[in-house]
């Protein structure tokens, strides 16, 4: 069970305020959604949380520990993992190795082991390999181990991104438009997969999505962003009825 606290997130690029004083919390085992029209700043939030961008203002706490200003890799090791909107798989490595790179930082051996070919290195390598295989199995990619990621169909690439993020052993998993480009049956399968993973592991999930059915079905709470500001927050049922939200998406009603 973990708690992510985000206070007063702000970021401006040049003169444009991409995020303006955005605060939210994610408790324990929740699934939370962030939605909003294009350009609302959703991915920017992820980039700020994971340290890709530096914060102009605001603070981030995970389980009470402050993560603000830490370098990216430290934030990941502290427990925040993410997938990318434009898939960023490692092309020089095969499918299994892609997952292994995420598990490698936790693999306990050093350069001496490498230079002297110690049994410890062998053991740890086997362990990482097996662990990564298990993650591939969870997302349904077993058998694809030796494939090159760029030769996988799009839907499977998304699964690999997911497996890789899982391998970092996260406390909070950030999914950035994970259903983009999937056809309806794939979206269905994806929703089920997220449920399975969520049930199996004790982490919370934040999803950015345009496909509202994904967010509505999975999330217990939704935050709506517009022009970098929090427009509304609440349960899916509340959000759907919220006037400001429909206005933001559809425009004002003509009378």
């Amino acid at each position, binding site marked *: 069970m973990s708690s992510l606290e985000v206070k007063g997130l702000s970021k401006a690029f040049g003169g444009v305020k991409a995020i303006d004083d955005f605060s939210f919390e994610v408790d324990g085992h929740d699934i939370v959604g962030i939605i909003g029209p294009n350009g609302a700043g959703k991915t920017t939030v992820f980039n700020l949380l*994971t*340290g*890709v961008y530096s914060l102009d203002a605001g603070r981030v706490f995970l389980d009470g520990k402050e993560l603000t200003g830490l*370098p*990216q*890799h430290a934030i*990941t*090791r502290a427990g925040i*993992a*993410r997938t*990318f909107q434009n898939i*960023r*798989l*490692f*092309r*020089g*490595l095969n499918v299994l*190795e*892609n997952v*292994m*790179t*995420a598990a*490698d*930082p*936790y*693999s306990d*051996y050093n*350069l001496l082991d*490498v*230079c002297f*070919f110690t049994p410890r*290195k062998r053991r*740890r*390598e086997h362990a*990482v390999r097996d662990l990564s295989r298990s993650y591939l199995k969870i997302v349904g990619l077993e058998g694809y181990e030796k494939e090159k990621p760029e030769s996988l169909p799009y839907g499977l690439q998304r699964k690999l991104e997911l497996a*890789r993020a899982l*391998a*970092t052993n996260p406390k909070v998993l950030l999914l950035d438009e994970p259903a983009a480009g999937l056809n309806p049956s794939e979206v269905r399968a994806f929703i089920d997969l997220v449920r399975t993973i969520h049930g199996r592991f004790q982490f919370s999930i934040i999803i950015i999505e345009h496909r509202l059915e994904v967010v509505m079905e999975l999330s217990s709470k939704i935050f709506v962003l517009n022009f970098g500001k929090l427009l509304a927050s609440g349960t899916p049922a509340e959000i759907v009825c919220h006037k400001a939200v429909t206005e933001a998406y559809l425009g004002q009603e003509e009378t």
Partner: protein
Amino acid sequence: MEYLVSTLTFTGITLIGVLGVYMVTGLTGLFSFGQAAFLAIGAYISAVLYKNLGFPLPLAAFVAMVVGLAAGLLVGLPTVRLRRDYISLVTFGFGEAIIAVLNNTANITGGAMGLSGVPQRTSFPLVLVSVIVCVAVVISYKNSKYGRQCLALRNDELAAKSMGINVERLKLVTFLIAGVMTSFAGVLYVFYTTYVEPGAFGWVISAEWMIIVFVGGVNSLTGAVVATVLLTGLPEFLRFASEWRIAIYCIVVLLILNFRPSGIFGEHEISLGFLRRLFRKGAGAA
């Protein structure tokens, strides 16, 4: 025969340097123009310690490698957090600075006239053993968490950081290992050629090594080895065309770039499995 052994010895020494470039450029994607500077450090430090201060050879070699490590830290620490292009420029400057230092300390190093009178201690067996050890270490490195993470960061640094990889430290570690290895090659070099001068360690050498790695297939260790043998041995046989040697070299590289950019071996490695299958096919045909 002696000519062949001498060529092989020189090829072996070059190979160790190329291995360093393979780690830094092939695995990690950094373009260091300063690798030859480590060669110079290894050569000069060990030669001066041995000749002028009477150090026993193994100790001189060890100190030379430690100095190489220190130089690597000096250059590497500020540089690894920089963008890729900066790394090239800084290592370039490093290489030039080392040459300038060597040129200006003539009382110790002989300056531009070079350092001579170094006894020949490097034998072919020594080089062969060194090469085998270095290749083994690089293989082990590549097939480890270090190698994988290097390839990841080479591919997509941002995504690598998101996977928890400490990109800066990894770059530094790889750079240092390559630097120490190349310094060692420098020791072998000076005690083989018995004479060195600063001009032999310019950025062109570093660039040539990078080209070798690239021709062999930037992802392939086997390729790097094969290409070293080919491209170091070949010019020896092109001696007659010495003026045009470099030009031919460059044209070959440009052709490969345009028509087979993945290099001779591309991504493939010769592994035990591959050799086994080859063997089986041959046995089957018999």
